[in-house]
Every structure is written in C-alpha cells, then in structure tokens.
C-alpha cells in the first residue's frame, strides 16, 4: 500500500498543530497543580474537561469542513443550516413527551445514542433532499437551510412556552453553550462515536476531494455522488450532535475553524484538511478555556468570545465577497 504523498508544508503544519495542542493540554493538566493533597482528584477533573474540549472542538471543526464540501460553499456551516437546533429541538420534544423525571430516568448512554440516531436520520432526509440532486441551485439551498434553522429554533421556543416552567428551565440550559458543564457520563459515548465518525470521514477523504469539484465533474469521474453526499451528511449529523449534547450549540465556532483551516492548509485534500481542522479547533478551545479559567479567573465566557470572534470573521468573509 502506498501512502498518499504529503507536501513538506502540510507535514510541518500538521506536526506543528499537534505539538501546539499537546503543549496546551500539558499546561492545562499541570498548571497550578498543588504539590500534594488531592492531586489525583484534580487531575481526573481536568482530564475529563480536557477530553471534552478536544472532542467538542475536533468534532465541530471536522463537521464544518465536511459540510462545506457537500454544500459547495465556504460560508455555510451545519449550525447556520440548523443542524444543532434540530438536536436541541429533539431534546425539548423528549422533555415535553416524557417530563423531566422521565428523561432523567432514561439511561444516559442509550438516550444519547438514540438521539444521535434520530438526528442523523432526520438530517439525511431533510438536508439530503436539499443538497442531493437539487444542489445546483445554491442560493435556494442556502435560503431553505437558513429557514429550516429558524423553523427549528422557533419550534423549540414554542415548545418551551407550552411546557411546564420547571421543564423549561431544563430545556433552556440545553440550548445555551457552556464549556463548564461537560457531562462526564456522556463523554465516553461522545468520544467513541466521534472517533468512529472521524475514521469514517478519513476513509472518505479521497472521495470528498472529488465531491469538492462539484456534482458534474464528480459524476463524470465515476463518483457515486448521491451516496457520498448522504454518507457525509450522516457523518456531519453525528459530529454535530456530539458537541451539542456535551456543551450546547456553538454557532460561529465551526465557521471560524473552517476558515482558518482553508487559509492555513493551502490544499484541497481532505486527508490534510480534516485532521488540520480537528487540531485547530481543539487547540483553540483548550487554549481559550485555559485563558478564561486560569488567567482571567472565570471572568468571561469562552462561548461568548467565540461567537463574537466568529461573527466578526463571518462579516469579514461577507465583505470580502467569499460567499459564493
């Protein structure tokens, strides 16, 4: 088996990013550790959070790059198209149907896997029809996606109004991103599923390169276009559900990461782009959380800063006319 050739530049980029992530992770684990006492307890706590941040970051980054390839657009993200609001809506409906006690009684892992399954199915049906054969009309696709996103959000807040106020409080907590409430029980499932999805994405890498050429060229080159679109959307759905379940919806983060990835890795090869996006996103989250928790003493929220920076970057892309 011949390994795909990697240019020197990209090798340096990937190695550099890995080292950077490793450095920040080490700093995260070891900074300000008391010389004795509850060291193992603190380490365990930090380890959970670190793993959570890395999974959330990598999944979001990779999902966005995948989605942009399918959509043939560098400004759309799964969040803008309503993927994560679909997930939040699912959770709200579950609370509405079963009540808090009912939801709490469900085993965490099975509930999560079921939610991811339903979400993947729905996303494939909704966005598959949108991006499959009709994808040639990009403006219509974007518009429909944005409207779907708004629809999910509105339905979610409608359900929030209808249900019991206490249940609403639970629901509302689910619809806000917080990097401090990573659910340790959910983490192993999220981690496993994310790894599976990432391996799947890497196996598709060469096909994704062809997909990036647009439907016509891809079909001409013998790519099973619709099948690859659906497979990729399924991976996107899984990779969006995981961070949304772990920390809540983060709208602009994916856009920020995908933009940086395409800027830094001057290549169209997904074998490079996907790991680069995962590494960049994970590094940003770990470094950002380190800064906020340790340096600024919890004085700000990472999610707010990410949305702010992401929003500015979005404006920059708009003004530079990169929306096509």
């Amino acid at each position, binding site marked *: *088996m*011949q390994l*795909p050739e990697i240019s020197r530049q990209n090798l340096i980029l990937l190695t550099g990013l890995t080292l950077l992530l490793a450095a920040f992770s080490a700093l995260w684990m070891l900074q300000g550790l008391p010389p004795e006492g509850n060291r193992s307890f603190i380490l365990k706590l930090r380890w959970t959070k670190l793993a959570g941040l890395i999974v959330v970051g990598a999944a979001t980054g990779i999902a966005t790059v995948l989605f*942009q*390839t399918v959509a*043939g*657009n*560098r400004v759309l993200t799964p969040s803008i198209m309503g993927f994560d609001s679909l997930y939040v809506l699912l959770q709200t409906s579950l609370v509405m149907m079963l009540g808090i006690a009912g939801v709490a009684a469900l085993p965490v892992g099975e509930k999560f896997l079921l939610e991811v399954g339903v979400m993947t199915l729905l996303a494939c049906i909704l966005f598959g029809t949108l991006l499959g054969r009709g994808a040639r009309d990009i403006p219509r696709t974007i518009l429909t996606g944005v409207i779907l996103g708004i629809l999910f959000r509105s339905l979610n807040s409608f359900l929030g109004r209808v249900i019991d106020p206490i249940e609403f409080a639970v629901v509302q907590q689910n619809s806000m991103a917080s990097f401090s409430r990573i659910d340790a029980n959910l983490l192993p499932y999220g981690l496993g599923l994310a790894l599976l999805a990432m391996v799947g994405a890497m196996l598709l*890498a*060469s*096909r994704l*390169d*062809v997909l*990036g*050429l*647009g439907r*016509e*060229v891809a*079909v*001409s*080159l*013998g*790519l*099973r276009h619709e099948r690859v679109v659906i497979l990729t959307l399924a991976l996107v759905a899984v990779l969006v559900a995981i961070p949304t379940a772990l920390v809540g919806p983060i709208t602009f983060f994916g856009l920020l990461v995908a933009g940086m990835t*395409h800027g830094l890795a*001057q290549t*169209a090869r997904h074998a490079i782009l996907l790991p680069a996006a995962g590494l960049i996103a994970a590094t940003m989250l770990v470094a950002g959380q380190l800064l906020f928790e340790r340096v600024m003493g919890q004085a700000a929220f990472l999610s707010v800063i990410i949305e702010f920076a992401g929003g500015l970057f979005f404006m920059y892309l708009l003004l530079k006319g990169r929306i*096509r």
Partner: protein
Amino acid sequence: MIEISGVNYSIGGAQILRDISASLPKGKLTALIGPNGAGKSTLLRLIGRLEPLQSGRISLDGMDIRQTPTEALALKMAILGQQTHIVSRLRLRELVRFGRWPHHRGRPCACDHTAVEEALDAFELQPLATRFLDEVSGGQAQRAHLAMTFAQCTDWLLLDEPLNNLDMAHSRALMARLAEMVAGTGKSVVTVVHEVNYAAAWADHIVALKDGAIMAQGAPDEVLTEACLSALYDTPVTIANHNGRPLVLHHA
C-alpha cells in the same frame, strides 16, 4: 457505438427532447449542431449520465448506461460539461490530476503521474501548472478542464461546447487534436459545437437537432447542405467548398 432509442426528456413541463433515436458511430468525431435550446447539451448530458434518463434507453458499446456501475462508465467515457465554478482552491496540475481518479481512486501511481504531465503538455499548460484555477483566464481554465478530461484516457470523450472561451488558435488546435485522436488512436468523440464551420472542417459525422428532435444526421456532405442548414437555423446560408470540405457562409 452509442445507441440512443426512444429518449424523451422534459423539465418542468417543457419537452426538451422528443423521441430521439440515433446511433453515434465508434471511432469517429461526431458533432451535435443546432440552434440554441435545441436540446444538444441535454442529449449529451443524458449520454454522460449527468442527468437521469426519464424514458428510453442509451447504451455505450453495448453497456446500458442505467445498468452499468458509474465507476465502470468513468473508465469508458469522460464527459466535460459547460464550466461550473469549483469551490476547492486548486492549482491547475491538481485539477488535471483528478482526471486519473477513476483509475486509482485515491492511490495514484507513477503511470498516473505520466498521464497528467502528458495532458498538461498537450494543452500547453506546463507554464501555468502551479497557478490557481481562479487566477487564470477563462480560456486557460477551459484548457485545464479539457486536460483533465484527456487525462482520464477513455475510449469515448463527450464534450459540451469545448470551444467556449477558447481563442481561434486554441480552438483550431483542440479540433485538430480531437481529429488526430480519432484517426490515430481509434478514440471516439462526441462534441456539441456552436460554430458550424468547426463541425464542417473536422467532424466525420453530424447530428442536427432542432426543437428537441433530430432533423438530419449523417456525413458532413449530407447534413451541411444549404436547404438543411437554412431550415435548421431559420437563416439563409450559402455553402461553399474549401479544400474539399463544406464551408458555411452566413455573413451576407
């Protein structure tokens, strides 16, 4: 041989093609001509399975295009549609490399590399090979797309208006290259041509479409007659003879 039988096609109630039956000969340069909206591109795209067949049957060298796996078809025919924007930021050489994808599906070998360099040479793209696709002119981008299609090394080449954006010299060079491929290596080419004289000068077989139906087909001498072309384009034309081939005059 490409056999088309009973093909109808409509988009949103508008009938684009009606009951098309034709056979396009193997080892020949076939030109599809006709006025705008005659259905030339649609027919080519149906053959190249870029659009799904609605009715009828199309087969390529005996392989039904609906039944044959798309991977196998990609080794038999290459189709170049009218250019669309590519989102991925690609250098010209990277684009041409994709022409080899049907052969290696992600694991290129030395022979793929050779084929790419040959295609770049053939279209005089070596000096531009490291430029980005969005940093070259429309004609240069068109040549890069053509080079990718050539690198696919298929028996059949389907080209939808390949002369778009090409200057006189490159248009002529492309048609000459196509004719040479057909004569020299036994490949078959089907191309949509707007300028009738390119068909007159180079094609072996001509199919004339009007309003979604075949109006005439056959050798250039049979199709490119004053009566036929005048009716085809609803414009009076005169046919002259130049070096033994018809020359269509429509300037007067």
